[in-house]
């Protein structure tokens, strides 16, 4: 029996679909970088994820090595576990960055407002 859930062998069609999807993901990210919509610094983690997905698509059996090593019986649970852990960390990291950006934004807004006020006063004095 071909069953990914038990021995990691994928049905041919699913195998092909997953390879296509992961290649598309990679192309999508690379295009975003080329168009300047994504910084290289921020893209690294997603390229890494893409790379892992690609490898697993080509060699699904590899995916079984890690859960086995950790003693996890159901590989699918391991998949969800790692995916959720990754997403949680990523969202937290985004929240931290968001706080930092609002802080920087606040300082910039204040500086611009103070400078504008100063310039207006200088112009009044000149006239």
């Amino acid at each position, binding site marked *: 029996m071909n069953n990914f859930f038990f021995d990691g062998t994928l049905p041919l069609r699913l195998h092909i679909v997953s390879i296509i999807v992961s290649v598309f993901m990679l192309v999508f990210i690379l295009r975003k970088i080329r168009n300047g919509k994504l910084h290289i610094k921020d893209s690294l983690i997603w390229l890494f994820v893409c790379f892992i997905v690609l490898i697993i698509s080509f060699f699904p059996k590899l995916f079984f090595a890690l859960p086995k090593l950790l003693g996890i019986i159901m590989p699918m649970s391991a998949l969800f576990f790692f995916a959720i852990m990754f997403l949680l960390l990523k969202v937290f990291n985004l929240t931290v960055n968001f706080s930092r950006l609002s802080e920087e*934004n*606040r300082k910039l*807004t*204040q500086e*611009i*407002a*103070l400078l*504008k*006020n100063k310039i207006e*006063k200088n112009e009044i004095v000149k006239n």
Partner: protein
Amino acid sequence: MKILAILPAYNEEASIKYVIEKIRQNAEAIDIIVINDSSKDRTSEIARSLNADVIDLPNNLGIGGAMQTGFKFAQRNDYDIAIQIDGDGQHNPEYLNDILKPVIEKKCDMAIGSRFIGFGKTGFQSSFLRRFGIKILSAAIKYATNFRIKDTTSGFRAINRKVIAFFADDYPNDYPEPESIVMLNKKMFEIMEVPVVMSERYGGKSSIRAIDTIYYMIKVLLAIFIDCFKYR
């Protein structure tokens, strides 16, 4: 002695004229700076038409960010004392000199106008729910700092040069009044409450909606708790 009145204003076109004129009537020597927090109405134009100095924030920063802009302005222009008066008419400028006095006489670093002590009790006392919230905050601050303050959310304040410098560098963002009391107390600044009579809002709407009150309480209580560890 250079004294600056900072008026944070967000959509206060109905009351800003009244507040500016009343300040001028009661204390001529005080400079006024209106911090227009990206108002969508004519707050800035009205203030300018009265020849008041206006700082227009290009983004809405909220009361904390707006006040800090005023503190930075006070610091850079070498003011000795800064007063915060809300632009909504709740703070009666007739009591300006009452909150100034203890700071000028160096009795404290920050004087807070309180509607819950002395003759202040004769004025506007806020809704029951608000008063309850203010009491809880008062208890939390007492617990955190061993310092009793009754009107924890009053934004009618005077601060001296040292506090201006401290706030220009570090001031809470969202609901700064209660939190800034804890910050100053932990930094060994002297705080004093002075009775003032407050009025109901002259016009416009309060920036804190009833629905937000619970979120407000949780946020401020958490901030007080964290400040206990942050400033030691």
